[in-house]
Structures are given as structure tokens and as C-alpha cells.
């Protein structure tokens, strides 16, 4: 994939000739290669412009200035979105969330970030580019916006960092003891799946193999999440130490950071830090003088596919294949990258692991709640005064958190991103933690809002970190529509429930949005959601309908207000619209053949 990136960057597209050459070199058929290229949306088979502009079209961006900014771009460049100018200078495209939700409306131009865009800014930007000013000088490096951390002794992530402090703790400790320590800390995966990290490492350690890998999942594709970006920008060294510790614990000597293409601007920094570590003997051979402890790191760039955040898809993508999730017949800790045992962990998980070693188990356990000790990073965006990153202690009440971010009139919250759940004022008394969790299938069986409130009030809210908040002026339906748009675009296409199911749901939501639906449509949506949930192959399909289902449960009025009376006739069918082609054609043909 790195080769493909080189070509894409240099020539702005991957041509047929290039494909033939590459496929020869790698001894695969040309079509297989084309399959790979066409999977990732940052690779283009046609010229994508000297300046390739990707404008973020996720809902947070749309509620800021998206439409005006888009218009401004189209006007200034003189093309519609999805096209390239005739002279090949500009290409304008839309893309889903680029991890800058606190600084919307944002865009990437040749992977340089441009945040807080306004139509005026666009105008000056384009004219300056035309005059030949360099992109780098015009772009603004995204800010960290760290809004809140607990008191110093309760902070885990965003406190001063000293190179090597965490890593040095492994001197004199056996790998098994490191794993025991992580197990005792109850650290669980922060990528959203919450698999116990210690256990994952243990499994990998127990699988004997001549080669093992540590992969850091920095694909951060969940819309509304940007904590990994800030963490890597603030403390890149901490991540490297975390990975090295993981390598020590499981016996791996190779590590890879899978960085999403949207974060190209972080690559340089990470590479520099790796170099510094190598110079200091904190990476490479015989690290810290420990005989036989080798660990090397490299960076692998993604190319625009949300599903590649899924760990098996991520591995497939690293192997240069289409980023399709596997069947889970084997887990990565059994057969991962190149068939070898592999640990895939999120950026935050690995950083937390490093900090746990550094600060000691007891200090760590003193923070947070019993089931979830420590702190959590939250990425806050939407209708509040202080969007940005929050490091909070687990166990904080949602109500209190809303005060902290200075939310105005909170109405609904997308908790955990697009694959998470939709929260209403009913939930404001719950705490953000992993206490008293219910099994998922029980949660989704609750059909009655009152019963839901009763059952769920004591249940903790566990989150991968996205927190998108919307006030009373916002309509729920466009948001849900945006969510299904996203899943339609990002489904890998392997299995039909997700591939077509989400597409059909999207059409249904559109129908409701236009107020053409009736009660039956709602029932159908529920039924379809559970089919998709039940039968999809990977987490994407399984969680893609969560928001929709919880929203239907908690905000029935938002749906009902759009419904028509039940009838045997499909009200959405509009005869005039359905014949408009005919009218047009008759006109056209009469004039052409006059």
C-alpha cells in the first residue's frame, strides 16, 4: 500500500500502466490490484487534481457551516463536488468525519488540515493557491483543545511526559508480571470493544511463534472521535513506550502504527519521535540494555476506509488486501498479521498501559470506579460552548459532564459515535463508567421507554470516546439520515444485510424525513434493524443500527410528528415525479428531431 500512496501522491492518480507494473512486480493479477485500489476512497483511478480537497460532510460539520463552505468552494473553483477542474489543478470531494469535529467546518487539502472554514476563508485560500503560495504555509495545524483534566494526581494521560519513565519500569520485571499487572489494572480496550487488554496480551503470549506483532490501531474512524489524534500529537512518545511494553510482554519484536490517512500531518512527528527513541536506545536492539529485548516500529498509512478500524480488516489492509473483516474463525492473537499472533490495541489503550507502569498499580486503581479504574478521554463536539478533549475520571455523572462542557439546552446526545447509542434527558442521571453493564441483547429488547428508564438508570455508560451533543433546535431525523449515509458509504460490501440493509434503511429514513411514511414503516425499520444486527459479519453491521434503534425508543415523538395516517396506498409515490423524465424526453426529442 505504501507504493500505491507514493504513486497517488506524485501523479495524483493510479493509472492503468502503473497498475500493470505493480501487479507484475507483486505477482498478482491486475484485477486483484484494482479491487484493492477501488476499495479505498483516497486512491483515485482518475486524476484527482493537483490540489485534492476533501470536505468533511459529517453531521457536526453540516450543522456548522458545511453548506456555505461547500458552495464557496464550488463557486471559487468553478466545479461541482466530486469533480476535477479541466486544468487538473483542483479536485473537490466529500469525505466522512476527518477527526476534527471540534474545529468544524474542516477540510483536508492534500492531507493538510484546514479548520474552522468560512466562505470568506475559502475565497482567500483558493486565490492564494492560484497565486502559487504553498499549501503548507496556508494550512493550520489542528489545535489540541484539551479542555479539562482532573487534579494532577488523578490525571493519567495529559500530564507532563518524560521520555523513558514508563519503559524503564520493566527493568527487572518478567513479561508475565507485566501482563499480570495490566490484568490487575482492569484496563480494557479503548477502541470501543472493551476487551480486557491483559487477557488479550496473555493469549498472544501463550501462542508460540517465531514472530509476533504489535499493531496500534490509530485509524480513529468513528465519527466524532478525535482523542487519538490529540493524544498522538501531545505525547507521541507515550504511545511508543506503550507499544514497546506490549512487545516486551507478549514477546513481539515488530510494531506498526496504522495511521489513518486523514492524519497524514501527524506522520512526521511520529517518525521524528521514533528516531529519537532509536538514538536513545529505547527502540531497536537490546533495549535498555536488556539482552535480547528488540523492538522496531514503523508506520503504515490507511487510505480512507472506516471499516479498516476493525482489527481483522486492519490487518488485511496492512497485508495490502481489500480491507474486509474476516470471519473470526481465528482471532488476531492466534493468526493475525501474516498469519502470526498479533495484538491490536487502540492508541489510548497503549498509552494507558504505559502510564499504569509508570505510576504504579495502586495509584492507578485509586482513580475511577471499581469496574473501570482510571480516566477516559472524551471527544466533545456539537452544541456546547467548549468542544474539545476532556480527560475525566470514570464514574462522572452525565449531568455533571454536561455542565463541564457548557452544553446549551441539551436535547440528544450521540454517545460513542455513530455506532453507539442515542441518549436523552432520561439518561442524564447515569454515570459514565463500566459498572453494572447489561448484556447487549437485553438492552435492545426493551421496547417500552418507561421500563427502559427503570432498568437502565443504574447502568453505567461506557464509551469509546465520542460525544456529540445537539440542542433543542436540531432535528433528529437529519442526524439519523446522516448516520445511515455514513454506513452506506463505509460498508465493505461483503455481506448483504449490511451492504443492502443499510441502503434500504437510508431510503426509509428519507421517506420519513419527507413525511411520507406511516406507522408500518416504523415497524419495518425496527424489524430490519434487528435483522441487520443479527446477521452482519462484523461490528460495523452489528452496530450500525444502534443509534437508530435507541433513538426510536427514546424519541418516538420525533418520528410520530412526521407520520401520515395509515393507509393502503403508498403516499410516498408521487405520480408527477414518476413521469417527469417522460415529459422531459418528449420535449427534448421533439426539438432534436424537428
Amino acid at each position, binding site marked *: 500500500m505504501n507504493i500505491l500512496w507514493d504513486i497517488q501522491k506524485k501523479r495524483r492518480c493510479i493509472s492503468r500502466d502503473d497498475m500493470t507494473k505493480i501487479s507484475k512486480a507483486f505477482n498478482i493479477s491486475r484485477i*486483484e490490484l484494482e*479491487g484493492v485500489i477501488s476499495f479505498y476512497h483516497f486512491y483515485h483511478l482518475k486524476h484527482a487534481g493537483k490540489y485534492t480537497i476533501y470536505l468533511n460532510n459529517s453531521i457536526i460539520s453540516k450543522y456548522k457551516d458545511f453548506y456555505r463552505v461547500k458552495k464557496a468552494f464550488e463557486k471559487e473553483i468553478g466545479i461541482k463536488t466530486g469533480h476535477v477542474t479541466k486544468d487538473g489543478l483542483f479536485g473537490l470531494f466529500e469525505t466522512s468525519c476527518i477527526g476534527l469535529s471540534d474545529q468544524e467546518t474542516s477540510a483536508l487539502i492534500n492531507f493538510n488540515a484546514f479548520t474552522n472554514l468560512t466562505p470568506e476563508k475559502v475565497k482567500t485560500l483558493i486565490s492564494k493557491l492560484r497565486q502559487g503560495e504553498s499549501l503548507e504555509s496556508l494550512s493550520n495545524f489542528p489545535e489540541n483543545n484539551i479542555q479539562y483534566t482532573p487534579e494532577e494526581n488523578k490525571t493519567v494521560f495529559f500530564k507532563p511526559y518524560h521520555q523513558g519513565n514508563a519503559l524503564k519500569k520493566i527493568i527487572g520485571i518478567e513479561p508475565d508480571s507485566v501482563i499480570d499487572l495490566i490484568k490487575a489494572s482492569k484496563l480494557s480496550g479503548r477502541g470501543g470493544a472493551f476487551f480486557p487488554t491483559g487477557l488479550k496480551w496473555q493469549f498472544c503470549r501463550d501462542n508460540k511463534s517465531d514472530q509476533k506483532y504489535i499493531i496500534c490501531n490509530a485509524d480513529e474512524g468513528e465519527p466524532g472521535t478525535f482523542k487519538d489524534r490529540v493524544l498522538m500529537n501531545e505525547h507521541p512518545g507515550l504511545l511508543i513506550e506503550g507499544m514497546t511494553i506490549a512487545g516486551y510482554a507478549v514477546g513481539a519484536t515488530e510494531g506498526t502504527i496504522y495511521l489513518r490517512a486523514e492524519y497524514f500531518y501527524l506522520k512526521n512527528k511520529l517518525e521524528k519521535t521514533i528516531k529519537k527513541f532509536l538514538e536513545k536506545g529505547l527502540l531497536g536492539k537490546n533495549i535498555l540494555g536488556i539482552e535480547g529485548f528488540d523492538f522496531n516500529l514503523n508506520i503504515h498509512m490507511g487510505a480512507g476506509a472506516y471499516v479498516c478500524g476493525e482489527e481483522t480488516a486492519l490487518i488485511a489492509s496492512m497485508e495490502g488486501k481489500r480491507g474486509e473483516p474476516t470471519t473470526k474463525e481465528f482471532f488476531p492473537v492466534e493468526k493475525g498479521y501474516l498469519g502470526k499472533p498479533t495484538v491490536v490495541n487502540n492508541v489510548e489503550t497503549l498509552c494507558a498501559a504505559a502510564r499504569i507502569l509508570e505510576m504504579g498499580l495502586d495509584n492507578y486503581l485509586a482513580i475511577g470506579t471499581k469496574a473501570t479504574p482510571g480516566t477516559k478521554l472524551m471527544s466533545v463536539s456539537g452544541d456546547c460552548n467548549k468542544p474539545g478533549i476532556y480527560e475525566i475520571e470514570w464514574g462522572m455523572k452525565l449531568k455533571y459532564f454536561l455542565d463541564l462542557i457548557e452544553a446549551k439546552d441539551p436535547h440528544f446526545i450521540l454517545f460513542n459515535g455513530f455506532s453507539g447509542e442515542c441518549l436523552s434527558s432520561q439518561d442524564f442521571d447515569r454515570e459514565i463508567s463500566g459498572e453494572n453493564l447489561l448484556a447487549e441483547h437485553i438492552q435492545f429488547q426493551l421496547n417500552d421507554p418507561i421500563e427502559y428508564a427503570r432498568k437502565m438508570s443504574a447502568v453505567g455508560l461506557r464509551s469509546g470516546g465520542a460525544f456529540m451533543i445537539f440542542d433543542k433546535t436540531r432535528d433528529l431525523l437529519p442526524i439519523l439520515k446522516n448516520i445511515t449515509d455514513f454506513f452506506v458509504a463505509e460498508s465493505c*460490501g461483503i*455481506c448483504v*444485510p449490511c451492504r443492502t440493509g443499510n441502503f434500504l434503511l437510508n431510503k426509509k429514513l428519507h421517506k420519513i424525513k419527507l413525511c411520507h411514511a406511516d406507522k408500518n414503516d416504523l415497524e419495518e425499520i425496527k424489524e430490519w434493524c434487528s435483522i441487520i444486527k443479527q*446477521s452482519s459479519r462484523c461490528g460495523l453491521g452489528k452496530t450500525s443500527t444502534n443509534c437508530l434503534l435507541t433513538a426510536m425508543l427514546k424519541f418516538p415523538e420525533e418520528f410520530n410528528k412526521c407520520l401520515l395516517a395509515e393507509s393502503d396506498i*403508498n403516499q410516498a409515490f408521487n405520480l408527477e415525479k414518476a413521469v417527469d423524465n417522460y415529459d422531459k424526453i418528449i420535449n427534448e*426529442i421533439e426539438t432534436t428531431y424537428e
Partner: protein
Amino acid sequence: MNNLVNIKIDGNKYQVEAGKNLVDAAKENGIYIPTLCHFHNQDHALGTCRICTVIVNGKTTTSCTTKVNEGIEVEINTPELIDTRKAIIEMLFAEGNHFCPSCEKSGNCDLQNLAYDMGITVTRFPHVYSNKVVDFNSDRMIMESNRCILCMRCVEEVKTDEGKNIFSFVKRGINTRVQIDYEEEKKLTQSEAMHAMNLCPVGAILVKGMVYKEPFGDRKYDLVGKEKEAARKENFVKKGANNKFIVATTSLAGCFGCHMSLLDIDTDIVDVLEIVEFNKSPLTDIKKFSKRCDVGLIEGGCANSENIEVLKEFRKKCDILIAFGECAIMGGIPAMRNFVPLKECLEEAYINGLTSEIGANIIPNHEDIPKLLNNVYPCNEIVKIDYYIPGCPPDANHIWKVVKNILLNEEYSITHEEFKYD
């Protein structure tokens, strides 16, 4: 056999060989789990079609990727799972463009067979009718993406001697399709190419000139599922009126074949007339509804504005609406034009066509002539349809039986044989 393990399937205990995949293990014990992407002697499961979805120890998963081990508890035939499986098949039909009556694979097709087996007459999902690629470019093969279910069999199984892929998925999401590598395809032997065609569970891979190898009427699935009975629907209770039932019929965008079939009942029509009186129908030539009807029979889908009006009229005037024949159910042959821009259709028919008068560059249009719709629609996308009678055309006895069953509220008694057309 050594290494036996105990497992539970739907509450019953079985002993099976450890490490076998669940589909095969169940099969050995006479339990059938439907599959599409799975095939015999497969090294590693594909897990793409999701039809073998079951519950193992409380979690839904696919059986082809599940290896049996000691003590697992499996649920296969819960009503919910059966419905999910059915829904997946229906979704495949809604997603692709399956016009079985004109398909080379009909009768040998795994998808079609499963649909019969599950008693699917109509898909619950609206048809996507997306324009898919039919690729004739390869010298030997045709890739008919309209029918491809993206099971990945061909991608994984068909390789050249050097191990290169011949088929590959391209694009992603709803646009994913299979593409042939023309260069590599040339390297296959004829029998390998035939193997690819036979491997495909549907009629997506065709080897030119080789498709009608097996004669009609003697197909792979003809003998399966003979004793099956169609499910009975229970809700509609309709008491017989003092006198006769009133029936109306119409042909929208159909070929009148279904109406012809109605008449095929020959002299039995006398029996029918004993309980039925026809109102608006081509059979009676009554043009306007003169009273409310018990049953409306609809042939054909909606291709023009008049079809829509008539259909809505039927919905208003009839208590029970039955769509009969494929065109009414899923658009059928007329819906094949959904993949060609309307403009091209009209130009071909009236201007460039062989039979059109040269220089008469007119497409008929007048305020009295109905307007063509942009797309052809199945009836259930316009109005609510209560029952469906599949077939192209359905058999006369079949139709009257259903109508009678509905009117007299009797149990359905149509055997698989009567119900199967290919």
C-alpha cells in the same frame, strides 16, 4: 471415530466429530442448515452469505465458521432465526435483478431453490433496481452482475496455475461487484472455466455457448422439497355473503398471459361461476366498477400513469387485493427496462427501431395517452397487496384454488409441485 464431542442442537443431544464445522456436523445428523456460500470440501469458510446464521451459546454467528467443540448449545430453527434467514434471501432478491424466467441458471440455482424452500413469494424489501454491469468483454465468459450475490466463491477458488486471481471484488459497499481479469481468464482450460460456472451458486458466471447443457425439465432441484406445503396465513377472515363473491381482475403492465392462464381452467369455470360473479374485468369487458368487490386480481406491474390510477382504484374498490404473476409481484419482464434510460427505450422503439417508419420521428404523445413512468414498479410499492401468487404465469388451478381458499377461508393446500415453475 475418535474425538467425539457432545453438542446440543435445538434442545436435542448429538455426538459429533470435534473440530468439524457446524453445517457439516448438523448435516450428518440429518439437520439441514441452509447455506449459499458454503460448499463441500471447503478449506476455510467464506462466511459471506450469512444465511446459516444460528445462535451458538446465546450469541448469533454463522454456522459455517463455527467449529463444534464440547458442550456447545446451538439454536437453529427458532422462529426469529428462520425469519432472519428468509429476510436475507429476500434482501438478495431485492438487491440484485433476478428475472428468473429469462435466466440460464433457473432450475439449477441455489438461490432460487432456497427461496422456494422457504416459501418466499415476494420480498419484503423494496427492489433496488440498480443498474448493474453485464460484462461480455472476456472472450469466453460473461459476468452477469445482476445475479451475483457476492458470495466470493469464485474469488477464492478459481485461480490460475500461478495462483493468481481471475475474479476479484472491486469497489465497496453497495457498489461492490465481481470483475473478471481478461488476461488471466484466457489461461484457464475449458474445464476450469466450466468449473467456475458451476461453482457459482447463481447464474452470474456464464461460459459462452455452454449454458444449456442440461435439458429443460430435468434439473438439479426438481426433486427437492416435494412434500412441502405452503404456510397458511390466518388473519383474513371473510364471511361468505348470501349470494356470490364479487371478483374484479385487471392487467396492468403484463402480457395478458396471466389472464390467459385464468381461462385455462376450461370447463371448471362453470364451478367457479357458481360462487363467483365477475365485475370489472377484461373477461367480462365491464369497464367500470359497478359495486364493491371482495377480491381484486392484479396482473402486471405499473409502467405508466394509467396503471397507477387503475391500481389505486382497485385498492379502493376491493377488500382483498391479490397480485398474480411475476410482473405484478416484482415488475417482471417490463421492469427490465429499469436499467436502460427511458430516453433510449423510446428512441429504440419509435425512432431507431427496425420496424419504425424512417423519417417519422415521433414518439406518440397526447394528453389522452398515459405517460410512461421513469421506472416500472411492482404493485406492492404503490399500494398494499394482501396476497401474492407467483408464477410466470401461475397455473390456472393454482390461481383459482388460492382465490377459493381465501374466499371460503379454507386452509391452503397447494403442494410444492403445483407451486413450482421453472
